[in-house]
């Protein structure tokens, strides 16, 4: 087990390294790195100073090493717009994005799994069929349009929920979270739900497919033959076997949810990393773009690793296969 873990960690590190190389090469190939990292409105004198300071007059491989070194120390350039360390900017905004993403995922599971379970166990029930049809609409919906409609209905017409912004926050483990306050929750509901819509449909379909695969298997019939209560047969035997592959999918989906938060954050003016990156792209604040890319790579690689680990832990067949 430890052997496997070490190998995966090494692989992960390799991927991150590869990404730094790609980003670095990208910086040089696409544009003038001087402009990208320094900015264009410095006069000749300042430019030369900046170039020397950032070591941009060095040979390429040395620059790359310096880049990696800087990355390891959390130095990926200063934002043009905010004049702050790009990394720090992003890390500051990350909790807000995580709130959204995790909230959306929780909603997706809380709604999608029970509905999917029902649809899988009673596929011919009219409600089950309606759910499946609804799920197709669910993942066809353009998220940004739905966000606007949400705002239309819940904020403008009904006035129940705020149309934008993040609510009041409270601190936990040194970070400010908004889900710890009522006001924060009110602000969180619409964007989280908007982000969750696509996921709910996905989880519903996946759960239903999983249930339909598990249900006809012998061990389910055997469980009933033993006289177990229907609740136990469903919740322990059917659900357990269905959830294991689902969990791994969800882990990966968390990554994509963080990414898609860009759109939701923009519409709801949610101060997360996604909105930051979009603004940065539009204002050509390239250090922030670079830093964001690196952060996302690290998050993704970590998620992949965690998901693999989780799968090993949850499925005894996989876990013990390796140990033998």
């Amino acid at each position, binding site marked *: 087990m430890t052997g496997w873990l070490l190998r995966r960690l090494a692989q992960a590190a390799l991927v991150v390294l590869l990404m730094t190389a790609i980003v670095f090469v990208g910086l040089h190939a696409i544009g003038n790195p001087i402009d990208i990292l320094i900015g264009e409105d410095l006069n000749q004198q300042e430019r030369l100073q900046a170039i020397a300071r950032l070591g941009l007059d060095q040979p390429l491989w040395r620059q790359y090493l310096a880049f990696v070194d800087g990355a390891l120390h959390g130095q990926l350039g200063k934002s043009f717009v905010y004049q702050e360390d790009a990394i720090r900017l992003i890390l500051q905004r990350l909790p807000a994005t995580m709130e959204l993403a995790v909230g959306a995922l929780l909603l997706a599971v809380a709604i999608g799994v029970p509905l999917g379970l029902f649809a899988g166990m009673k596929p011919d029930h009219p409600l089950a069929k309606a759910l499946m049809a609804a799920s197709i609409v669910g993942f066809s919906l353009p998220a940004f349009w739905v966000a606007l409609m949400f705002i239309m209905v819940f904020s403008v017409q009904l006035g129940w929920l705020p149309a934008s912004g993040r609510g009041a926050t409270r601190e936990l483990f040194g970070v400010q979270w908004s889900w710890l306050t009522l006001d924060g929750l009110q602000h969180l509901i619409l964007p989280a739900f908007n982000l969750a819509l696509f996921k709910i449909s996905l989880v519903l379909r996946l759960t239903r497919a999983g249930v339909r695969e598990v249900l*006809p*298997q*012998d*061990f389910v*019939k*055997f*469980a*009933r*033959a*033993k*006289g*177990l*209560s229907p609740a*136990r047969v469903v919740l*322990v*035997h059917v659900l*357990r*076997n269905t959830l*294991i592959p689902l969990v791994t999918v969800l882990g990966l989906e968390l990554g994509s949810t963080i990414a898609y938060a860009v759109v939701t954050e923009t519409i709801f003016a949610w101060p997360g990393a996604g909105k930051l990156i979009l603004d940065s792209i539009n204002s050509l604040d390239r250090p922030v773009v670079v830093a964001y890319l690196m952060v996302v790579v690290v998050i993704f690689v970590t998620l992949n690793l965690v998901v693999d680990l989780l799968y090993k832990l*949850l*499925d*005894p*067949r996989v876990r*013990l296969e390796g140990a033998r």
Partner: protein
Amino acid sequence: MSDAEVPTLELRDLQTRFHTRDGVLPVVDGVSFTLARGKVLGLVGESGSGKSVTGFSIMGLVDPPGRVEGGQVLFQGRDLLQMSNAERRALRGDRIAMIFQDPMATLNPVLRVDTQMIETVQAHRSVSTTAARKQAADTLALMGLSNAGERLRAYPHQLSGGMRQRVAIAIALLHGPDLIIADEPTTALDVTIQAQILSEMQKLVAARGTSLIWISHDLSVVAGLADEIAVMYAGRIVEHGTVDQVLDDPQHPYTQGLIGSLPSANLRTQRRGERLRQIPGMAPNLLQMPEGCAFAPRCARASAACATRPEMTSPRADAPGHRVRCFHLGPVAAEASA
């Protein structure tokens, strides 16, 4: 000396039908038999004969598109088909238990063995987990599994096929049921393990007075174990008698064919290189059943009389328990070559 004891199980004209897109299949078509306490019945037939579905019908585990549609299943005098789901569930695993065919698929692969045994105990008795675990360990020991503690903590895939089947049998025995239905439990196992499990089952059943229905497609497996044999074909029982009656004096052409096709039965008469006798024709298509006797298309003795459905009759006055569903009764005639 007991007075007229209520038989453990009595099936009266059980009908189970499957409603598929292509038509209605009468998978169990009027099956009746009685099983007394402590007796072993061998239910024999080829695949598709309805023997497994008969077992499931008794347990109340027939899944759509199948449905039990007629007859009575009297367990110790009470009709299971008339009971509520909750009452049936209370009996399952406690008084009536079932063992399935494929040990690889019977146990839930993501749960430990002890979890799957303990839940069976606790489903029917309110005992502590510790007491339940002890009961599980004791039953495993009964099955001849050494090191019960380790086996309990294992996951199914860590055990061999034979061990898994023993676990499944142990689960069936946990509450000392009055009736066990074993659906081809040794078919998927090695021959040596088969023999072991057969003899173990025999001892256990004899010791506790449990009634046993052993479903199989293999007469030879059942021959050593059963007290009575019922032969099924196309959803109907075509011959039923004690094991001696059926094996030594088979009356129905299908039974004769089954026995005749056994290598061991032919050993005495067979000469080297001689072909085994086969039953001509193919298994019946339940969608296109002939009006009368189901076996007529493959029967060498078929005649015009076979256009009506035969009933079970006793050909021998001196053996009233031996019943056959055929118009052309009589000893094994000199058959034309296979």
